[in-house]
């Protein structure tokens, strides 16, 4: 499977495009990380990929087929989406919540059957949500809820998983858990795209990284080439060191280190 974003310009109004001329190309098992500061248009790009808003120009192709002509249901079979903050006021049980992801697999008038329940049971076991199965979603922690939402998206059995800031509002441990899961999913051949505010995540997952800098071409490439001190300074207007350390297996790992009150300040670019 191949997902291509072909020189897409996206935005809500034709006279004020948010992002111009973005091109990405991803295959099965790829992890793609999109970086950029607040309001630069990361979510807009996602909405265009998910066809929630039409691209102003350019095309989004899956296996060489333009998704503009696809039906919603067909698109949902291929691409699943985890929104940044999806809260519902209703006390859906965790199991029910995950089951909602099967919506595209059961027919219009259908209800979940035996196979759907098997898929959901499998997902709950895989993500370690088994013990929460009968708890209302309104009563579990933020990290658990994020996992539930990911499970819901996975229940669609997609080939591309799109996550909008999956680690926002999570504590350190949960952030790591979510990232480990993304890595595991990519190992199973799922193509994953996510946004984050932490350039480190791109380095840790060794993801193909798209760095959005306002007014410039999107920088796209392997993480260690894109996440550099110079690029980060241009994107975030701040001084960020990229340092290499060794992990427990004595493999080199790069991390980002923000520095405060540097002589050249944050404004120069």
């Amino acid at each position, binding site marked *: 499977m191949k997902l291509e974003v072909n020189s897409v310009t996206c935005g809500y109004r034709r006279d004020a495009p948010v992002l111009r001329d973005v091109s990405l190309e991803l295959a099965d098992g790829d992890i793609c990380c999109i970086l950029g500061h607040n309001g630069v248009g990361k979510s807009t790009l996602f909405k265009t990929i998910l066809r929630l808003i039409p691209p102003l120009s350019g095309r989004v192709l899956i296996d060489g087929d333009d998704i503009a002509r696809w039906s919603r249901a067909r698109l*949902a079979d291929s691409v699943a989406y985890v*929104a940044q903050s999806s809260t519902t*006021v*209703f*006390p859906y049980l965790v199991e029910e919540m995950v089951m909602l*992801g099967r*919506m*595209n697999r059961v027919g219009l008038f259908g209800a979940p059957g035996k196979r759907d329940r098997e898929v959901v049971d499998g997902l709950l076991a895989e993500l370690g949500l088994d013990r929460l199965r009968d708890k209302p979603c309104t009563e579990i922690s933020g990290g658990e809820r994020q996992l539930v939402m990911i499970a819901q998206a996975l229940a669609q059995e997609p080939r591309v998983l799109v996550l909008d800031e999956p680690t926002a509002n999570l504590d350190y441990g949960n952030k790591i858990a979510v990232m480990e899961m993304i890595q595991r999913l990519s190992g199973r051949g799922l193509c994953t795209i996510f946004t984050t505010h932490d350039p480190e995540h791109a380095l840790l997952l060794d993801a193909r990284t798209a760095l959005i800098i306002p007014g410039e071409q999107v920088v796209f490439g392997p993480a260690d080439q894109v996440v550099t001190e110079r690029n980060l300074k241009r994107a975030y207007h701040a001084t960020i060191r990229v340092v290499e350390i060794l992990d427990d297996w004595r493999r080199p790992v790069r991390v980002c280190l923000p520095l405060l009150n540097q002589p050249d300040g944050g404004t120069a670019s």
Partner: protein
Amino acid sequence: MLQRRHRRRWLAPALLFAGMFLLSLCFRTAQPGFIPAEAARNLWTALRLWVAQVLQQPLYLDRFDIIDGCPFYYETLIRLRNSLVTAGAGAAVCLGGAVFQTMFKNPLASPNILGISTGVNLGNALFIMAYTTQSLAMMGRRYVYCYACAAVLVVLAVGAGKLAGRHVGRFSVVDMLIVGSLVSQFGNVLALYYQYKITEIDYTLLTVYQELSLGIYVLTGLQDMLLFAGGLAVSLTPVLLLRFRLNGTALDDERAAAMGLRPGALRAVGMVCGSVLALTALIHCGDMGILSMAIPCVCRMGRGADFRKVCLWSACLGGSILLFCRSVCSMIYVAGMAMPVNFAISLVVLPAFVLAISKQRSAFE
């Protein structure tokens, strides 16, 4: 094991519903009285006579003697029709409430906020204004008035939601709710005005109006029953068929769209079906107060929010509670008339509602 848990899910509410229905049959209609044995015999007799009539058995020829031997025979038959309408109305109005709450992502929404019960009241008042003293003979026209008034109010509210959302490009639920509640308040005042205007024509007409809007007598003529069944069938079928899909409207629109749903279309179907469900119930059974708001809320608190469960439980529970209230009310006679069911509903539903909310605080905070 999964299968068994799945199968048993509908048993408890269905049993409750059936029990309440049977209990409701055991009361007399014209006077207070609890007559389970006679009611059972009357129903058996009615069934036998009906079979005899269909199969043209000689038993049917003796029907007058047989019926003479059964005390309260006709009362029981009326009670049967009465209970059927009551059970249907209670189930329908609560199902409507469940649909609306899911659609508006608000656990306290009810069909009334779009002006449906107001529309019915206004329709009743206008109908009596138009036909004055002949209104009792022209009951068929009442449906036209009620449906028209409710349709106008709902269209106003929904149109407002559309208009307000036109720059954002999506439907504005909040604006619709605000306009709905304002328009229905205005409709209420208007209905009140006509209600008193009626007294200027004839004082007794006010009694007719009140009996209609409080649902003192459930209309059980053949035409009424057919209309009722028709309304229910039209609106109930899509809701039941889409019972899993409708869950999608409880999520964010974007999430639902990414799941392969069309939230706009689903909401439109839900809105129409929910409105018709509530309307049918309110027209045939009178005002039911907070039943449509409280019952789905209580069910959701108790059984989880999956619409498949909520719709099953709220329909059964709503029908049962309405039947129960009617049974109780038909034992309480003041001034020669059975007590209106409206107030009894409030008394029965309130404690459960308050309990459910105080138990599930976290959902609100």
